[in-house]
């Protein structure tokens, strides 16, 4: 069995900025990322969607980089860039020909040091974000399902339960004071990690990181709100109207163990047993064999990168001739089968090979090939920010490959329980019924 070993070097600058360099000269391309340990889970109350809106603002100008120039400088270097917001981190990244490395570091440092944005930028990006929400959620069949529909049903703590894309009223209420305060609180070198991957020498990367970033002053360590959920003791239910699609949809989410606990690796493999493509039990049973569902997918979102209450979520679109109850009963049967009989040694072996293969793919690429080493960057960032241990990228696989059949059955029985799950139904609007789709819990 050939094993991939990622070369890397890491350090922490005097201002607390963590730095990870992962050299690889295969191609004259370097990927640079900065991760901040703040995601939409912890955005300010009354400011739903703010973390994501703020992410947009990070492209709108900094001390020496006027609006539009960050994008221009990266594109005109032959590179691509983007940023994204998730539950617990926000990242900014670019892949460029390696001769642009210093330029990229300078750009990232400039905006880590100071934003320079105005009301017009804010209004503009608020408009852009609204169109983003419309194109991805409000004007799409099953838009935002279930990732936006599930949290308000599943969770009780606002941190986990609110609309992460943002209510439009909350987006409109955000002002420059909020932007500056958010920046001052979370966008600190001591709350971030810089990653440089690809065509760079390790020592050179460390030196350049110091050159561009060490002058940025540290700030007070951010106080993070507690995202802990109260103990869930009953199955929760939500209903959402589907405005465009014609198939009934259903999502079932089970609360996950904490990341890097003993149960975590086993749950990840069990997730693959259930959701692993056409060989996964749910697709095989609901789509291929019983032919109740048209789609059945899902799983644990970002298994290495979450840092708070999270679910493993199954998403099912089923044929209209079956009721939600029939679909759910079929789903329950699949779950019960695992809990009762566990999985075979052969199945476990398959899962481990596939897991390893997928892990390698993640390390090489990610984000559809236009952003080399995105996956490696993400793992290194999460292992650094949450575990202070970037080397985990080379060792963490072992834990998954050592999972036993017994452990899988045990975590199944422990976590896949009705009182630990939430179900959201998203059924097509009937003719004549009022529109206006919002997730509400009824029980």
């Amino acid at each position, binding site marked *: 069995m*050939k094993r991939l070993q990622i070369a890397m070097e890491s350090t922490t600058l005097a201002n607390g900025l963590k730095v990870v360099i992962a050299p690889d000269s295969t*191609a004259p391309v370097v990927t640079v990322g900065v991760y901040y340990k703040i995601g939409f889970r912890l955005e300010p109350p009354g400011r739903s969607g703010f973390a994501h809106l703020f992410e947009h603002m990070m492209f709108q100008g900094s001390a020496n980089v006027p609006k539009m120039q960050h994008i221009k400088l990266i594109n005109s270097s*032959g590179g691509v860039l983007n940023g994204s917001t998730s539950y617990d981190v926000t990242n900014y990244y670019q892949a460029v020909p390696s*001769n642009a490395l210093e330029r990229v570091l300078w750009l990232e440092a400039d905006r880590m040091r100071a934003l320079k944005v105005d009301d017009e930028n804010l209004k503009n990006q608020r408009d*852009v974000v*609204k169109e983003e929400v419309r194109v991805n959620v409000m004007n799409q069949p099953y838009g935002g399902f279930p990732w936006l529909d599930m949290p308000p049903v599943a969770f009780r703590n606002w941190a986990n339960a609110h609309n992460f894309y943002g209510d439009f009223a909350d987006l409109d209420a955000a002002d420059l004071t909020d932007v500056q305060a958010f920046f001052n609180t979370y966008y600190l070198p001591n709350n971030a990690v810089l990653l440089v991957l690809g065509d760079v020498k390790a020592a050179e990367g460390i030196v350049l990181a110091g050159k561009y970033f060490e002058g940025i002053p540290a700030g007070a360590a951010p106080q993070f709100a507690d995202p802990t959920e109260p103990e869930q003791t009953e199955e929760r239910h939500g209903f959402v109207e589907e405005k*465009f699609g014609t198939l009934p949809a259903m999502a079932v989410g089970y609360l996950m163990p904490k990341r890097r606990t003993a149960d975590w690796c086993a749950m990840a493999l069990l997730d693959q047993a259930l959701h692993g493509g056409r060989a996964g039990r749910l697709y095989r049973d609901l789509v291929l064999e019983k032919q109740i569902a048209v789609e059945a997918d899902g799983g644990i979102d970002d298994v290495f990168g979450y840092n708070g209450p999270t679910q493993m979520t199954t998403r099912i679109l089923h044929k209209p001739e079956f009721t939600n109850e029939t679909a759910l009963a079929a789903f329950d049967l699949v779950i019960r089968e695992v809990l009762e009989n566990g999985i075979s040694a052969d199945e476990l072996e398959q899962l481990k090979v596939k897991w390893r293969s997928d892990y390698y793919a993640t390390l090489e690429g990610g984000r559809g090939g236009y952003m080399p080493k995105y996956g490696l960057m993400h793992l290194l960032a999460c292992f650094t920010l949450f575990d202070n241990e970037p080397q985990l990228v080379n060792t963490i696989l072992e834990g998954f490959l050592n999972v036993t059949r017994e452990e899988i059955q045990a975590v199944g029985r422990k976590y896949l329980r009705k009182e630990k799950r939430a179900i959201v139904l998203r059924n097509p609007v009937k003719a004549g019924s009022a529109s206006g789709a919002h997730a509400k819990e009824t029980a």
Partner: protein
Amino acid sequence: MASGTVEMATGAPELAAERAVTWPKRTKARLSNGLEVILAESHSIPKFHGELFFRSGNAAVADRTPGLAEMTATLVRTGTAKRVSRQIEEELRRLGADLSSNAGADTSALSFAGLSEFAAPLLEMVSEFAREAAFPDAEFERERRQKLEEVKLERTQPGFLASERLRRVLFGAHPYGQVSPSEAQVAAYKREDLQAVYRESYTPENALLLLVGDFDSQEMLKTGEKIFGAWRGKKPTAKTFAAPPNPRGRRVYLVHVPGAVQTQLLLGCHAITRQHPDWVRLGLTNSLYGGAFNSRLVMNIREDKGYTYSPRSGVSALREHGYFSVSAAVRNDVVAASLTEIFYEMDKLRSVPVSTAELADAQNYLSGVFSMGLATQDGLLSQLSTVALNELPDDYLETYRQRVRALRPEDLLATARKYLDSANMQIVVVGDRAQIEQQAMLFGEPEFYDVLGARV
């Protein structure tokens, strides 16, 4: 009036000297049975990626019914002479492999990736799909029903409705004019028709095997010969189609989606294929117009005006024809405003030569992202397949950057005038008619359609 000044960043480091871009050597061979094979080594991860292409897609069999090649490809992996569906899926997982099969207008393909250590058994399975697909009755029936739901579902997606309409407008009765079968057409699919397509198209003489990854090319070539060498089959006879329409003048096609809270714009006009000598200059022109984040259109209607999240332009090349298109999902009340800017940016590129500075930026961009194909196995596979399927020159990858950099402002001006055909753009607008009709009508005589594609 916006003032003409653009603020520049101050103090950004200059670019260092470029590192040479070295594309890997390709091994090209033709097996004894006529199967063309192209191999390239890439040792970044202990995996490999491959595609087995057949140079026939939905267009080749569109005279029977639309989407037939796609349905054939769907069925190919659902059962073979040796294995039923469940065995297939488990075996793939056992090899750490991903595999998909599908067909576009011009090709059918099996795409796969897996661990290098299991390269031979994965290629065996690919060979089994290519030679011994069984088209089980039950699988056919399920996939047909599944497809029925899919073609219903896609009619709820604004992006699908827009591209369906544009393709119809640009290509009419040509097979490229229908992007998806109707429900009735799917309902009428027959297993025997799929088998006929399979027999005709899935032959080594019609195929191209591309492999990129962590292997030794000479060893892999031997493995390939061993696995695929005994496969036999002729090239199917080529089809010809009547030329598509070339609509003159701007027209508006409004697809009414009741209650849409946003409007999907999609504009297009005929352009060129990948083989056309203007391809590179059109690519560069497009990246200046709307093909990059830093492009004029994106900077205008997203960053300056906030009309949209995702404006984009592109050149779509099919085998026989190509088209240029511009898309943006915009707020309902800025449909006219967005179209105004879309045309303005087009007209400006047709009227005013780009500055050498802007040109250099765009050249850097295009050659930079092109070279990024080097960095991953699937990126490289994609570049190689483009060259091979379009029968581009062997040195296409190596000379691309140089050809991009040779272009001058006057080349781009001429290219924009030729292909960004402002006066003849066909304008598809998908949204709630009551909210956007008046705005859309400002740009051309309108025709109205419902979500089923029927003119109303």
